[in-house]
């Protein structure tokens, strides 16, 4: 710990920041610990020593925790991120291997052990350097873990589109560059030549003058004894041969032949399979259950009662789920039986009408600017489920005083700490083994994954290992949803078709201020948060608050353009700074989409411009309404400025998929509540977009302006819903202010 003062809040002074103190404190907490400890010296020597002991064997040498070079030239990179298919491990390897001048075919990436010595220091630094960008995922860390951070800064979280821009840039490139220098220094001594005469290529140090070269593997042992340069000079991008290339992802071959092992696939001898049902009204408790009926089913071995759930343990999943379905457990409702989708919206309306905001940001005199007759519109969005394709599955074994857990989590280290807390064991006796993840989108953060506690509780009382699988029904009913949220937008226009004042009053559990970038320059703007919490678990849903805020602001901008009688692109242009990145992205999407070209009858184009995670995305959707009343998506044109891109094809895949996820949520997805209980039951009534409903043509362009690197996993999502809603307005004249669209299509 140092005595560095806590930065009070984000650096931008003109914004009043009320109601975001908790986050500022958390970030401040990170800052206290982090100061002076960054860079590749990796915090402390003890951690590096521990890391080395955990990963190196005979003939293997560790460099700055994250890199291992073997004497046979194999290069192993330990990633503190979870590659959920976004390609971050391949990207991180490209960054490190680039600066190391490693031979790519000898590089492999594995998950860093879920141990404090592999805490992601660079990520913490990235957060501070980028404080106004995306600190909200810090809310996904358990309370006990926050104090742990405050002591040791043990971060291993994946989220906030941070892997490459924080971990990659802050740590991995430097580790590669510094290790390369140590290898050169070692070679210079061995060949007895000046350092300046040496070059590196394909995992070799080369002395061209004497036609000699040494393999990294034969230099590694000695190089590993040197202290590494903390701030090595990085390559000029003009010399890149791995970065900025569409290198094939390292994880893909195992995902086309069935060999990739997900948490769901884990098995060990004697393992039993369990499945579980928690109180259907979140907040309720298990009051009684007659276990006999389940125990009568062949293959069922035990029924275990937890405080708020009942689990069936069996020889396999089928007897387990058959046993669970046979039970008729009684649960209390925790006093939440009066909560419904309608009651939440009603509460939102009342809070906004009352006008006592929990947080406010903005500038200028909005009240005066709005005058007596502002243009007003109310928007509403539902809870959204993550619906990752792999339901939860964790395996745990308690044996000889030690607890082992296997599965896929977005934060392995915090998962371990949660199991430590639940089991009461020492941290040294608990090991979490990270596995491949079948989708996450923010869902697999341990703080809101009851399964970590559940499987720990089961394993602690069972004499054999147990894999706990959540059925899809449990998965849908017990989500950590994107919050149901409402907004009342109001604005006034000048007689010159300019916005005089703009207000966004929104109600939901948490402030969206940290994720909201309002790109337009207006004389007066206000964003007010009205806090409302229901009995539901809400969490980070891909791009966090940027989806609903993007929908509110970009739909309302369209309404204002319409009210001003101006083209939506021109209207936006008129409120953007000249020469800004936003303007360039918008102009580019207008040009590439053929914004001003005629369309067949019945079709419309809609535009949206959203910045999230430091990446600016503009999207034009071309849509019509089908005979069934459902939106038909003809074409999506997207322009992205993420500053720079590490792997263009992998980045493209993220924008493609993010767009489809955004469109899917806009069209068909909703979690609704009645009597405190989720009404949807499975993927048969929580409806995801399929191939036929997806746009046939997606035209995506990257501008690569050279601005600081932005995120890529999330920013494709937010513009999709407003661009589609605006397109449908252009096609039909009907404004969409409530999602999903399908609910309205069907009346």
């Amino acid at each position, binding site marked *: 710990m140092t005595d560095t003062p806590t930065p009070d809040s984000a650096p931008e002074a003109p914004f009043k920041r009320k109601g975001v103190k908790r986050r500022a404190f958390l970030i401040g907490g990170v800052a206290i610990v982090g100061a002076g400890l960054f860079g590749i010296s990796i915090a402390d020597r003890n951690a590096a020593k521990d890391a080395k002991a955990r990963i190196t064997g005979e003939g293997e040498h560790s460099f700055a925790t994250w890199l291992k070079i073997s004497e046979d030239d194999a290069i192993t990179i330990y990633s503190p991120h979870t590659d*959920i298919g976004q390609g971050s491990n391949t990207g991180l390897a490209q960054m490190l291997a680039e600066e190391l001048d490693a031979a790519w075919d000898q590089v492999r990436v594995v998950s860093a052990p879920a141990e404090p010595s592999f805490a992601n220091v660079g990520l913490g630094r990235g957060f501070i350097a980028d404080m106004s960008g995306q600190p909200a995922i810090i809310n996904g860390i358990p309370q006990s873990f926050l104090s742990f951070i405050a002591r040791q800064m043990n971060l291993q979280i994946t989220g906030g589109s941070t892997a490459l821009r924080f971990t990659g840039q802050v740590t991995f490139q430097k580790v590669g560059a510094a290790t390369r220098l140590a290898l050169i220094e070692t070679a210079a001594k061995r060949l007895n030549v000046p350092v300046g005469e040496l070059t590196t290529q394909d995992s070799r140090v080369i002395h061209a003058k004497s036609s000699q070269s040494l393999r990294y593997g034969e230099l590694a042992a000695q190089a590993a004894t040197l202290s590494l340069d903390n701030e090595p000079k990085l390559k000029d991008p003009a010399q890149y041969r791995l970065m900025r290339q569409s290198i094939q992802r390292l994880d893909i071959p195992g995902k086309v032949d069935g060999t990739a092992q997900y948490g769901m*696939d884990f098995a060990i001898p004697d393992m039993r399979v369990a499945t579980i049902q928690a109180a259907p009204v979140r907040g309720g408790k298990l009051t009684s259950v007659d276990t006999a009926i389940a125990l009568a089913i062949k293959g069922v071995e035990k029924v275990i009662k937890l405080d708020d759930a009942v689990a069936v343990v069996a020889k396999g999943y089928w007897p387990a789920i058959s046993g669970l379905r046979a039970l008729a457990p009684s649960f209390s409702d925790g006093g939440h039986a009066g909560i419904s989708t309608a009651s939440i919206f009603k509460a939102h309306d009342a809070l906004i009408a009352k006008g006592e905001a929990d947080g406010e940001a903005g500038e200028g005199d909005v009240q005066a600017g709005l005058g007596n007759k502002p243009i007003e519109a109310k928007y509403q969005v539902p809870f959204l489920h993550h619906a990752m*394709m792999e339901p939860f599955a964790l395996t745990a074994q308690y044996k000889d005083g030690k607890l082992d857990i296997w599965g896929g989590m977005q934060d392995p280290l915090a998962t371990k700490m949660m199991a430590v807390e639940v089991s009461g064991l020492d941290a040294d006796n608990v090991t979490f083994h990270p596995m491949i993840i079948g989708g996450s989108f923010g869902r697999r953060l341990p703080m809101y994954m009851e399964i970590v506690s559940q499987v720990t509780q089961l394993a602690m009382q069972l004499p054999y290992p147990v894999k706990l699988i959540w059925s899809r029904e449990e998965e849908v009913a017990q989500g950590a949803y994107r919050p149901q949220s409402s907004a009342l937008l109001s604005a006034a226009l000048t007689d010159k078709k300019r916005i005089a004042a703009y207000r966004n009053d929104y109600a939901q559990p948490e402030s969206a201020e940290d994720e909201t970038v309002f790109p337009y320059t207006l004389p007066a703007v206000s964003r007010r948060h009205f806090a409302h919490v229901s009995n539901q678990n809400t969490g980070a849903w891909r791009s966090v608050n940027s989806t609903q805020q993007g929908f509110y602001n970009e739909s309302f901008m369209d309404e204002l353009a319409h009210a001003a009688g101006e083209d939506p692109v021109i209207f936006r242009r008129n409120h953007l700074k000249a020469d800004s990145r936003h303007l360039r992205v918008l102009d580019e999407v207008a040009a590439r989409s053929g914004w001003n070209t005629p369309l067949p009858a019945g079709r419309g184009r809609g535009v949206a411009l959203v910045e999230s995670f430091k990446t600016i995305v503009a999207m034009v959707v071309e849509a019509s309404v089908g005979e069934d009343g459902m939106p038909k998506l003809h074409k999506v044109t997207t322009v992205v400025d993420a500053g720079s891109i590490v792997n263009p094809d992998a980045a493209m895949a993220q924008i493609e998929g993010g767009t489809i996820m955004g469109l899917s949520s806009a069209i068909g997805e909703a979690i609704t509540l009645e009597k405190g209980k989720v009404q949807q039951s499975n993927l048969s009534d929580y409806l995801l977009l399929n191939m036929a409903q997806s746009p*046939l043509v997606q035209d995506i362009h990257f501008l690569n302006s050279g601005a600081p690197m932005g995120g890529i996993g999330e920013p494709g999502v937010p513009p999709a819903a407003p661009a589609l809603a605006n397109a449908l307005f252009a096609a039909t004249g009907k404004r969409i202010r409530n999602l999903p669209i399908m609910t309205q299509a069907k009346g």
Partner: protein
Amino acid sequence: MAIQTSINGKAVTLSAEPDTPLLWVIREELGLTGTKFGCGVAACGACTVHVDGEPARSCSVPVSDVAGKSITTIEGLKSADGTLHAVQKAWIAAQVPQCGYCQSGQIMAAVALIEKTGRPSDAQIDAAMTNLCRCGTYPRIRKAIRTATGQAAQAVEGAV
């Protein structure tokens, strides 16, 4: 009651209860975990396998239904010498998978479609490829199916 069937060309005798879904027999009794559990109600297709050459959502097929039939899973697509199926190769070339969890089912559905149609049109792809992918890899799945069947990678709206 033992059930006789063939999995990936190999005769097997299964001991599971007759009402057990084929999916769980494949995964837990035979240990072939490439076939995935996604929803249990045949809504997502992650569990797609071939039963006598036809795509089937194995989470909703009782194992008693496949007695005497021939089942192929993702593990059975490679040729005997380990060479990947043309569709698997196309999947790598197009860098289709993201999280990858649904892709065994997607590939099995695509192989069945191609075996039936030869060169599927976009409309045939839309009709047959109803498996869900939350990562949104649909454009690349389409691209991989097109390239695996000798068609231009890029779909064009309005083309027949």
